């Protein structure tokens, strides 16, 4: 199966915060408005929302990494 993880490019990110609105289940903002992700694989039902968050980020700071693993 394939797992999807979210990585934030901290240099690109400018704290627009759209990602946390689009994907509150996986992204929370710190007190300065920058997104915090936990690095764990995304549940399958959140992958579509994650793609949308990545696409809608004005700074293109969200990276989705796909990893295939056996099983």
């Amino acid at each position, binding site marked *: 199966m394939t797992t999807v993880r979210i990585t934030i490019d901290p240099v690109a990110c400018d*704290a627009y915060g759209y990602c946390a609105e689009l994907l509150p289940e996986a992204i929370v903002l710190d007190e300065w408005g*920058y997104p915090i992700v936990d690095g764990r694989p995304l549940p399958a039902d959140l992958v579509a929302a994650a793609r949308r968050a990545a696409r809608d980020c004005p700074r293109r700071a969200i*990276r989705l990494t796909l990893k295939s693993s056996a099983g």
Partner: protein
Amino acid sequence: MGNDVRQAPPRGALHHLLGHPTDLSGHIDAHGPLAVALGRHESWQAALGANLEASGLLGRGGGGFPSATKLALARAHGDGGTLVVNGMEGEPASDKDKVLLTRAPHLVLDGAQFLAAACRARRVVVCVPAGRDGVATAVLHAISERSSARYARVSEVIVRPPDRFVAGEESALTNWIDSQTALPVFRPDKGVPLRIGKRAALVHNAETLAHVALIARNGPEPFLARGMAEEPGTCLITIGGAVAQPGVVEIERGTPLRDIVRLGTPVESFQALLVGGYGGSWVGPDDFGTPYASIPLRAIGAGAGVGVIIALGATGCGVAETARITRYLAGQSAGQCGPCVFGLPAIADDLARLAGGQSDPGLMTRLQRRLGQVNGRGACRHPDGAVSLVRSALSVFRADVAAHERGEPCGQWHRPSPLRFPGPTAR
């Protein structure tokens, strides 16, 4: 683990960094010519890699990454690259690379030549910060001696990046050589080698290269004969703080912390040691016997970091010094990543309030939350170093922290710091 330290090293062909001739003729008398195989000498290159691997040499710039692994990565990514000598030493408390590049520049440059040949790089670029002219003069003199004597095998040049804490981070360094931007680069996959232009770049700390020069010439045995079985060799340490004789010493890996501090002649009993530099960790009296090596230091929540040990005297205040160091580190952010740009000053403010007796009921909870939120969220590890420093302080100085929380005054906060802070710290 202290029993593993070999107390009485045999005299003779010892591995040591300090005490080498500074001029080229003396260097050649001591070590012989530079025997490197250029071009596609696979067996020579493999033998050098095997010697490095057998030595177990770990990088001495702070990351502690195995040098043989780094070389193998560079070898796999093509010819014609750049061997970068990292002589930036941005850590304000550290002098080891300045001392080494001034006293034994040929040893460092030889290490760079060996590794350049091993990964078929076409040039050596030595980085010494702008303003550090004494070191640069020594390196330039050594390079010109080598050039006139046709001693160096690939070209050697010196460049002068800005003198900032994060400018010496390896991706910031290759970024600067490439495009004069001394900023770290976000690299989610550290297995991808750094590049300058389209070619691979191999960045090594100056001290690491001096070790490489000796291991490449003498084989791994003299290196293995010193230090601990699981972490051999020697390393340079800058001793500072409450000592009568601050400066750079060479120790065997695994020497207990308190024995290292004694080499600097403490002026009073010391209550804590700052190990690994300003982005390192405080160590309390219960752990003064810890061997200076990665594994035992990790076991007590510290790390070898850059080779720095600072003694905090009995009259000092760890909370005040931590607040000052954190303020300094906050000012040294590259300014790229939000959690570092906003988080470090916020943490520094919390600590300043604590140190100044201006605590508020929510301060400790807020500080702990901020430490958790900042850690691991930068493109480089600058914020992580600050977090490790503050966390260790909250643990080692917990009695002082509690007193400060109650608003008890601390005389040290308004006195000059015994630590070194190069100014100006503002960007």
